[in-house]
């Protein structure tokens, strides 16, 4: 356990992904195989449940520490992590009996589900008594989960690939699907060759730069094609050897997350690779990104999610056809081939071509660009018709042309403490604008966009300028002004301000502006009128 605890804490300490990969790689090079498979399972969200309720663990720890439950709650509120709170609150370990490895501890935990309450309690507290503070923390994570140490499946794949000298794509594929650490081994899962190792291999994505200056600077409009820029998940869909593989831009293999796309298996020809955007999609129209967000982080895609957040795949490029790499063909040719293929598409609800925008002059495009928001798009993608499909972010042939976010200057009026990494700090803010009677009307909540040092300053301000406390919420002296950006605006009868904004976020702190000069509700209503 010492080895794994050391890895765990080191991973937690650094926020540099390369260092995380190196740490895991070092661990995978020296740890016993039976520990490795558990480590991989943990880092990729495959920890078995041991049926321990957090309320039980809380209670046992408070009793061991001899403190009342309210004091445990206060402590937890300050730490923001249950496993860690327990490790800090327990009395010092009485004695380390014997070193157990990571897999030994899992075997120890696997006895839990068959135990009654009293036995469970004794089993857990006995473990706590022989583990150091750091080990107790890691042990609690094994028992109850909720790892927040910034290790994604992608990083595990990279580390394993480097440790085993295999292609990352191959490794990603081997880690896919529904395997359990109790039913497989490191040998079988990681080291054995898999018949589809090669079939799953994606092409590197071609990425665009933001357009510089005016679109007319690109030259003759005839040389270019334009598509809406969708706000979704950039994805590559591969159909080879009768299997479908979905890669997202972070080089994550996400096949299991989008079962809707299995429909492609019924009509795509063998050896096809498509590039496009996965968005939430209903009635032939993309849904806003926040709908997609409800589904992104989920490990299991439930029936309810499939119903509430149905996805669609808006296809705009083809990279492989009949098993041939056609990235060297021009954009125009690839588009033609893609359109031909989609003639056969039997389904128009889930997979569909991302349409080309017709325009003769740049001015046409400039006019249409203003309608991006109504089309649930972020703007345009402008692609040179003669362009090949390139590797990575390259200037010259693909440009993204995004609409500016809407924004107003607003005054901070309420603040609330965050959780997890932001526990103990006032990081969740409510902003207000002036109404016609010179009163501040709250209109948006936002909690991102500030640097850590700015958060510390605002936190300090909140603590010193609290007017009233309502439970966790504090009202503060209206003094600080921030520019708040948002993606959309709607009339709303549920909000006091009469408007609701989408994805509000802090663009910057307007230290130069006194609160009296912040925007008014009338300014917001003007924006609303111009967009509806």
């Amino acid at each position, binding site marked *: 356990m010492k080895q794994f605890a050391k890895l765990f804490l080191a991973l937690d300490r650094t926020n540099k992904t390369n260092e995380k990969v190196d740490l895991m790689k070092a661990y995978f090079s020296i740890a016993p195989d039976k520990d490795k498979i558990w480590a991989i399972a943990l880092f990729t969200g495959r920890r078995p449940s041991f049926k321990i309720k957090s309320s039980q663990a809380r209670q046992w720890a408070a009793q061991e*520490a001899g403190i009342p439950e309210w004091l445990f709650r206060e402590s937890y509120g300050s730490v923001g992590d249950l496993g*860690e709170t327990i490790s*800090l609150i327990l009395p010092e370990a009485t004695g380390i009996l014997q070193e157990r490895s990571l897999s030994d501890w899992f075997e120890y935990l696997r006895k839990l589900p068959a135990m009654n309450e009293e036995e469970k309690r004794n089993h857990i507290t006995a473990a706590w008594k022989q583990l150091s503070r750091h080990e107790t923390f890691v042990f609690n994570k094994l028992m109850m989960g909720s790892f927040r140490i910034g290790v994604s499946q992608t990083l595990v794949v990279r580390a394993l690939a480097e440790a085993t000298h295999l292609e990352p794509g191959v490794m990603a594929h081997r880690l896919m699907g529904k395997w359990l650490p109790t039913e497989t081994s490191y040998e079988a899962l990681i080291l054995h060759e898999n018949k589809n190792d090669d079939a799953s291999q994606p092409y590197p994505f071609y990425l665009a730069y933001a357009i510089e200056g005016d679109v007319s600077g690109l030259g003759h409009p005839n040389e270019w094609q334009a598509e809406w820029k969708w706000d979704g998940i950039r994805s590559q869909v591969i159909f080879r050897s009768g299997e479908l593989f979905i890669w997202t831009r972070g080089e994550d293999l996400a096949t299991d997350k989008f079962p809707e796309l299995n429909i492609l298996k019924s009509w795509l020809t063998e050896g096809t690779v498509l590039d496009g955007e996965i968005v939430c999609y209903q009635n032939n129209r993309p849904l806003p990104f926040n709908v997609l967000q409800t589904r992104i982080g989920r490990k299991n895609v439930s029936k309810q999610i499939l119903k509430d957040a149905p996805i669609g795949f808006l296809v705009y490029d083809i990279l492989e056809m009949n098993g041939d790499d056609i990235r060297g063909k021009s954009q125009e040719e690839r588009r033609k081939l893609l359109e031909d293929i989609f003639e056969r598409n039997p389904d128009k609800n889930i997979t569909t071509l991302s349409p080309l925008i017709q325009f003769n002059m740049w001015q046409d495009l400039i006019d249409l660009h203003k309608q991006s928001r109504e089309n649930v798009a972020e703007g345009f993608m402008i692609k040179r018709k003669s362009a090949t499909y390139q590797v990575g972010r390259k200037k010259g042939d693909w440009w993204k042309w995004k609409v500016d976010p809407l924004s107003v200057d607003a005054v901070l009026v309420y603040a609330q403490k965050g959780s997890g990494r932001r526990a103990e700090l006032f990081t969740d803010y409510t902003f207000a604008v002036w109404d016609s009677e010179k009163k501040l009307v709250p209109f948006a909540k936002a909690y991102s966009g500030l640097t850590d*040092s700015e958060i510390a300053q605002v936190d*300090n301000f909140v603590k010193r300028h609290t007017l009233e406390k309502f439970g966790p919420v504090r009202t503060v002296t209206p003094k600080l002004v921030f520019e708040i950006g948002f993606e959309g605006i709607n009339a709303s009868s549920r909000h006091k301000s009469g408007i609701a904004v989408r994805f509000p976020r802090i663009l910057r702190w307007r230290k130069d502006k006194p609160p009296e000069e912040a925007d008014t509700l009338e300014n917001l209503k003007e924006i609303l009128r111009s967009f509806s």
Partner: protein
Amino acid sequence: MAKTLLQFTGKSIHCSIADVHIDPWIPVDKAIITHAHSDHARWGSKHYLAHKDSASMLRLRLGKDISLQTVEYGETFTINGVNFSLHPAGHIIGSAQVRAEYKGEVWAFSGDYKIEDDHFSAPFETVKCHSFITEATFGLPIYKWQPQSEIFDDINSWHEKNKSDGKASLLLGYSLGKMQRLLKNIHLDGQPIYSHGAIYAVNETLRASGFDLPELTLITKETDKKLFKGSLIVAPPSADNSIWSKKLAPYSSGYCSGWMLVRGAKNRRSIDQGFALSDHADWNELLATIKDTGAEKIFVTHGYTSVLSRYLNEIGIWAAEVKTMYGDEEKEEVTIDETPTNEQSAS
């Protein structure tokens, strides 16, 4: 009801019989100052009184020309029949608890205090009293300090590792208190110790007043950055990830603070290492000290005031929260650390 010996007026801890204010946060006539951190020692009062070891720092921070009377620990001074004396608080150099006695009734205000002897400030002494006014900066049972020797060992091995990796060690800690404690206790290898201006100013001032502290090398625009490789560099926490720290690369940063006991606090700052070294009493030390004073009434001034006072009441010790403007020097560093630099350029 008759007035108590010390009162909480919303601008200081006030002794109305003597008309003396302790650690006032607005200008007053007569102020007794527990220690030189800026949330306790504020600008603008007519006369100050503090322990003699606080004098040079108070003059650095409040101005050379302040009217300042100094006393020794345990020396009694009587104002209008009230006997006052200062007693070591162990928090930083010159830090004191204030004892006030009038007609047999004794009150004590702890200021900020630390129990473990840091080998630089005078070690903490318990003051027996009827009413004890205590801080509660770390008044939660999660805060239990490791012995400082273990933390100094950790810092030493971290510096050794950085040296072998060809990196500088940027040791971050509050400029007054924490940094002197570190410089007195960690292993110094005889190589130059490079310093940020804020810490340099404090160090020079203390050295000039006769305190035994190592010499520091001030980093200026002209300092050759090649010299930093493998060296120890000391700076206030706010200097990390600033324009100032850019030229130190490659370096590993290590932040010394009691808050570093909790991962969240560590992860919020982009630092490489956190060392949970605090200049305040931890949970068990707060409780033990409160019991040792024998006080019947406890007033809790800052930190986790509601938690500590509720717990004390539950275990049968009368306690109440008091609203003050004292805070945690480290959490205020954002604004405070700018001052020494200004003073430096002014001097």
